[in-house]
């Protein structure tokens, strides 16, 4: 129980720090994009705007409380409902503190603010690294960092800094009723007091919030489109040779886009590395098999690359008017989103050969299978993208249907492999044959995809 309480305090404290840092980073309050046009020009008092701003945060706070209670094991607390109340009040306080940090940042001179940003950026990096170490340590059983963090949080200074987090957990876990009442009172005071402070600071947040809101929603839009921040000093001189003429131009476009999206690729690489680190902690064949399965299936599914068919509807339409043969256009579009995960898979395989005793013959047979499976995965995803290019929301039904179809498309290769296994064929040969079958499936999908790209009514929303 003590250990779980420590984890809860750590998470709440982490969220508190991240909230304050994000407030400083935003340097304004973030509203809905539509609020800029409809709410800001309306004759609404400052305090009402602030209440309106906090409403969704309060709902999120209650949701977070429920999440703690049901998913993270808060129901095993001695007083789960009080714990829910505590987490909600703590998160409300966090929202106020975040807004307070944003308001104070607005009041700072630009030069001073820039210096503060450098410090907060370094803190975010450190906290993220610490978070990752905790996760890895927790999964692999080497919890040195976790215990170190917990000890740090138990220090008197941390108890004061993270007072709401400590009180929230106390509310749900303390054995004595008066202490729980005291914790509730403190938390309510924290929430009310922090809100009063936000109200009391006479910072005109409207102008800053206008910019902060625009910036925040642009970021969301960019993330949705898989576009990350990039600086280009000089245009590319362009590729040489006839290979990049015609449909090859799309290949160049995607390669250039990827070169400018290194953050996304590095993110992918990081996930592969973390998962490898987690799985390599497990000894025996099951760990290796799990790693292979992850690398084989999850990476191509996960990579949110802004290339291939993952384009806005209008750009897909603009590609249609180019004088390019449908099959070649589809192949050129798929090449990079298949190739990039494949390179990550190849890297992971190499690591497994070095650290995990993976048989080299098997690894060589597995590599073409990775490419073939990746092509099938991306091709099927592309059919769904063509149906709903860049949807504003995630459609669960679509996602499930896509996943099911992707699994079904693997069936011919799996059945062939199972048949060969029954005939006692060596494993590398089985994998190679399965890769060939999968490549045939991918080719057939590519042909259909090309036709669909040219003739489907993508234009109609």
């Amino acid at each position, binding site marked *: 129980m003590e250990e779980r309480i420590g984890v809860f305090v750590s998470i709440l404290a982490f969220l508190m720090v991240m909230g304050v840092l994000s407030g400083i980073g935003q340097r304004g309050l973030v509203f809905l994009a539509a609020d800029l046009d409809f709410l800001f020009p309306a004759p609404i008092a400052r305090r009402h705007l602030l209440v309106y701003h906090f409403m969704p945060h309060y709902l999120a706070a209650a949701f977070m409380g429920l999440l703690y209670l049901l998913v993270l094991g808060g129901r095993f607390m001695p007083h789960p409902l009080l714990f829910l109340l505590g987490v909600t009040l703590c998160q409300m306080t966090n929202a106020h503190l975040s807004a307070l940090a944003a308001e104070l940042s607005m009041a700072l001179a630009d030069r001073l603010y820039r210096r503060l940003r450098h410090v907060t950026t370094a803190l975010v990096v450190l906290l993220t690294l610490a978070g990752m170490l905790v996760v890895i340590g927790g999964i692999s059983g080497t919890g040195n960092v976790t215990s170190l963090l917990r000890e740090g949080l138990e220090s008197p200074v941390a108890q004061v800094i993270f007072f709401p987090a400590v009180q929230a957990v106390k509310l749900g876990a303390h054995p004595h009723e008066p202490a729980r009442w005291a914790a509730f009172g403190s938390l309510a005071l924290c929430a009310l007091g922090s809100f009063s402070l936000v109200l009391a600071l006479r910072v005109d947040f409207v102008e800053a919030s206008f910019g902060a809101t625009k910036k925040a929603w642009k970021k969301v839009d960019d993330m949705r489109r898989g576009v990350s921040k990039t600086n280009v000093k000089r245009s590319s001189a362009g590729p040489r040779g006839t290979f990049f003429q015609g449909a090859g131009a799309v290949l160049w476009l995607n390669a250039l886009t990827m070169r400018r999206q290194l953050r996304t690729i590095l993110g992918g690489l990081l996930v592969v590395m973390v998962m490898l680190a987690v799985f390599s902690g497990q000894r025996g064949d099951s760990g290796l098999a799990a790693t292979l399965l992850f690398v084989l299936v999850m990476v191509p599914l996960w990579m949110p690359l802004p290339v291939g068919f993952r384009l806005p509807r209008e750009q897909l339409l603009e590609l249609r*008017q180019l004088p*390019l*043969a449908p099959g070649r256009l589809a192949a050129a579009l798929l090449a990079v989103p298949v190739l990039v995960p494949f390179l990550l898979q190849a890297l992971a395989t190499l690591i497994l050969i070095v650290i995990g005793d993976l048989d080299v013959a098997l690894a060589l047979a597995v590599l073409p299978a990775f490419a073939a499976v990746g092509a099938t995965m991306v091709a099927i995803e592309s059919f769904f993208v063509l149906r709903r290019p860049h949807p504003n929301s995630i459609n669960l039904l679509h996602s499930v249907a896509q996943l099911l179809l992707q699994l079904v498309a693997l069936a011919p290769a799996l059945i062939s492999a199972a048949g060969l296994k029954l005939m006692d064929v060596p494993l590398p040969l089985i994998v190679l044959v399965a890769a060939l079958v999968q490549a045939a499936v991918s080719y057939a999908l590519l042909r259909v995809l090309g036709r669909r790209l040219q003739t489907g009514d993508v234009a109609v929303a």
Partner: protein
Amino acid sequence: MNEGPSSPALAVEGLAKRFGDFTAVDNVSFDCPRGEILGIVGPNGAGKTTTLRCIAGILKPTSGRVLVGGHDVIFDALPAKRQLAFIPDTPHPFDMLTVTEHLRFTALAYEMKADEARFDALLDEFELTAKRDELASTLSRGMRQKLAIAAAFLHDPSVILFDEPLTGLDPKAIRMMRGSIQRRADAGATILISSHLLDLVERMCDRVLVLHEGHRLALGTMASIRESAAGAHDASLEEAFFAITEDALTEDHDAA
């Protein structure tokens, strides 16, 4: 089918496009000779953009056909598309390409030689030289429009389709764009302009096609449209437009 000496640069025959139960374009036919500027006007939902997209080969017609230089845009798509350019009302350039790279990409896709002098001339014509190394995602709406038009002009298309070409442009750019369109027409390109700006259509176009709820209501020169619709040579296109579309609305109402 090949282009004969007398065949029109663009021929639209019985074009229809349906989306499920909704008919966006219904049996529209017309053709355009080389060097003509044809204006397409009509109220919102008249089928102007769908017509242009069908001509560009972006949408597959439900029935009918479109011939560009004698080539069917669906069944003989590549030669037809090599002669076409379509500039949408809101261009969406690739976020991760710079202005120059868009021209490079277009040149590669149309299998042209990367001609730096030609790039420079187009960038200069559309006042994009200072922005040549900037990512498209950083451009203003007007700049994006100019970039789309510059890229569309790169391969010297013989049929150019404009959907609301002046949206987002400042007065100076509008004047420059009108001159640019006129120069292409004088050089023999066939231009189709879909626009709500009747003043622009009246000033620039040789003929006008009036669409209403997917149907062709009128097609002819300015003079013939004015004459037949408003009954007077000196009526403006605006008066003629309202006379034609309001007649159609009255007929629809009576039929209902």
